[in-house]
């Protein structure tokens, strides 16, 4: 019970800080970074489901992100769809991509799987670049509108033109995704996924259908990555094939590794760290990237299970040390 109320208090404080943030941060650029951090957190959280919990190194998440972003942007700009209505098909397209690549490659192990997903990512960004009639090729899609206003039944409209409103939208989506992952992990399905990560042979002898559960995690993760892309497209208002390229996927892997693989908050901590630190390092001008590289190497060397993993271990050691002598 004490543990439960402590968790509730932490969540309440975090929410309060997150909600108050637009009123505290007055610098436009900093606020932009914060919004991007929230969007990348959604992507990293989706990847955590497969990389952190199921143990599958997917490098296709940049592609799923791009598939979601493009689907929504095309439906809004070319078909005049209501933004909110584009969300389910965008997630479905990303999930379909996930199922397709999953069916083809989930039987492969380790590196082979990672390389196959990377190839899929390359194929997706190439298609987006070459299919000029549909996607406008390298010119990209511009003037993507803000989300459609929501009527409030005679009380005017809820609009999403301002950055503050888009920030709250991204924040709400992140919260929903976190809740989804939390409930999935704390269920028999999550136990099966973690069993797969730790020991496939043992898991399968306990009755876990490896392919089915990997595909389940992969498709939901892809859909969530697509959702992150949808929010990105409406915030950034301009898409080009680079947005669906490999880099976003690589960055997401990095956020998770730095934050803590397979920890619930790792993706958030890692994203915040890697989005803010390069800005702080700006004072070192030309040496910025050099220092960032050194910082990353140090983090991985001394905190192999990431920042959150390291904190966890520290706390465990403290509790063990605080135990009364027998």
């Amino acid at each position, binding site marked *: 019970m004490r543990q439960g109320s402590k968790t509730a208090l932490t969540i309440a404080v975090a929410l309060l800080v997150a909600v108050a943030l637009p009123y505290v941060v007055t610098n436009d650029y900093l606020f932009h970074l914060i919004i991007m951090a929230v969007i990348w957190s959604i992507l990293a959280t989706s990847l955590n489901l497969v990389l952190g919990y199921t143990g599958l190194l997917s490098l296709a998440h940049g592609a799923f992100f791009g598939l979601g972003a493009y689907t929504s942007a095309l439906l809004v700009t070319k078909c005049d769809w209501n933004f909110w209505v584009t969300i389910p098909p965008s997630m479905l397209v990303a999930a379909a991509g996930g199922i397709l690549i999953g069916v083809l490659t989930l039987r492969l192990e380790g590196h082979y799987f990672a390389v196959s997903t990377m190839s899929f990512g390359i194929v997706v960004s190439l298609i987006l670049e070459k299919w000029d009639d549909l996607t406008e090729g390298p010119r990209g899609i511009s003037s993507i509108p803000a989300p459609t206003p929501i009527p409030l039944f005679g009380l005017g409209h809820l609009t999403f033109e301002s950055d503050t409103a888009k920030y709250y939208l991204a924040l709400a989506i992140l919260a929903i995704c976190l809740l989804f992952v939390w409930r999935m992990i704390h*269920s*028999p399905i999550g*136990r099966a996924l973690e069993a797969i990560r730790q020991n496939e042979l043992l898991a*399968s*002898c*306990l*009755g*876990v259908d*490896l392919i089915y559960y990997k595909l389940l995690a992969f498709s939901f993760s892809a859909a969530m990555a697509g959702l992150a892309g949808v929010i990105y497209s409406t915030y950034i208002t301009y898409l080009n094939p680079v947005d669906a390229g490999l880099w976003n996927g690589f960055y997401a892997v990095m956020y998770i590794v730095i934050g803590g693989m397979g920890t619930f908050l790792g993706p958030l901590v890692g994203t915040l760290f890697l989005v803010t630190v390069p800005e702080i390092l700006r004072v070192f001008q030309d040496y910025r990237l050099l220092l960032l590289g050194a910082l990353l190497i140090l983090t991985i060397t001394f905190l192999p299970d990431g920042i959150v993993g390291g904190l966890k271990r520290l706390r465990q050691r403290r509790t063990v040390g605080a135990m009364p002598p027998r």
Partner: protein
Amino acid sequence: MSTTGLMVELETVTKAFGGLRAVRDVTFSVGRGEIFSVIGPNGSGKSTLFNLISGVLPATSGSIRVLGRDIRKLRSHQVSRIGVGRTFQTTQVFADKTVLENAMVGRHLRVKTGLWQAQARTGFFRAEEARHRERSMEILDIVGLRDHADRRAGQVPNALQQRVAIAMALANEPELLLLDEPTGGLMEQEVLDLMALLRRIRDRGVTIMLIEHKMRLVRQVSDRIAVLNNGSLICEGGPDTVLNDERVVEAYLGTVDASST
């Protein structure tokens, strides 16, 4: 359900790895409620045989029926669904998870709620989770791990880790339990405790197949014994017959060289 009442029926089963035939033309069957031991020198194909019966490896030829079902084309998770649980020679547990969580993973096949019920946290979902927790505790009770439920499986002593593995295999409530050298690294008293545990499990209606090297345990606990040597079945029967058989003694101790006399 088997019509013959046989839990395992092997008929001329062979497993070849390239040119090496690890299991050769093995034929025997295991009846319901038996404790059936498989013994033999190292490398005689015992673990391979277990891998065939549990669907981890496909047989090269021959027929394998488990609880009356032909399992040649089934993979391990499908075989477990028929009612087979197993442990491994090198004890395998989920080290980061608590002992109770290990048992809960083991109840995978008994789970009836899906993703959406988990997302909505329906009353049914909560009730089922509570029931799994309760059943898992009962199983920890059976194997004597109740007091260790909240410890990480990787941190309990070696002797108890094998019991975690057994608890996991039992949690699915199988009808057939395959135990690959459960006494590895155990002390004298711990072996005796394990023997008592095996009998308790059998008395609950679970058929047990056992790979074992400790002959005293094999003699005392087995209803029947099969002896493998170089992949072939050289002898099968009750403990007294088998353990006094010339061929068995020979397989373990080597041939008495006739020319030296």
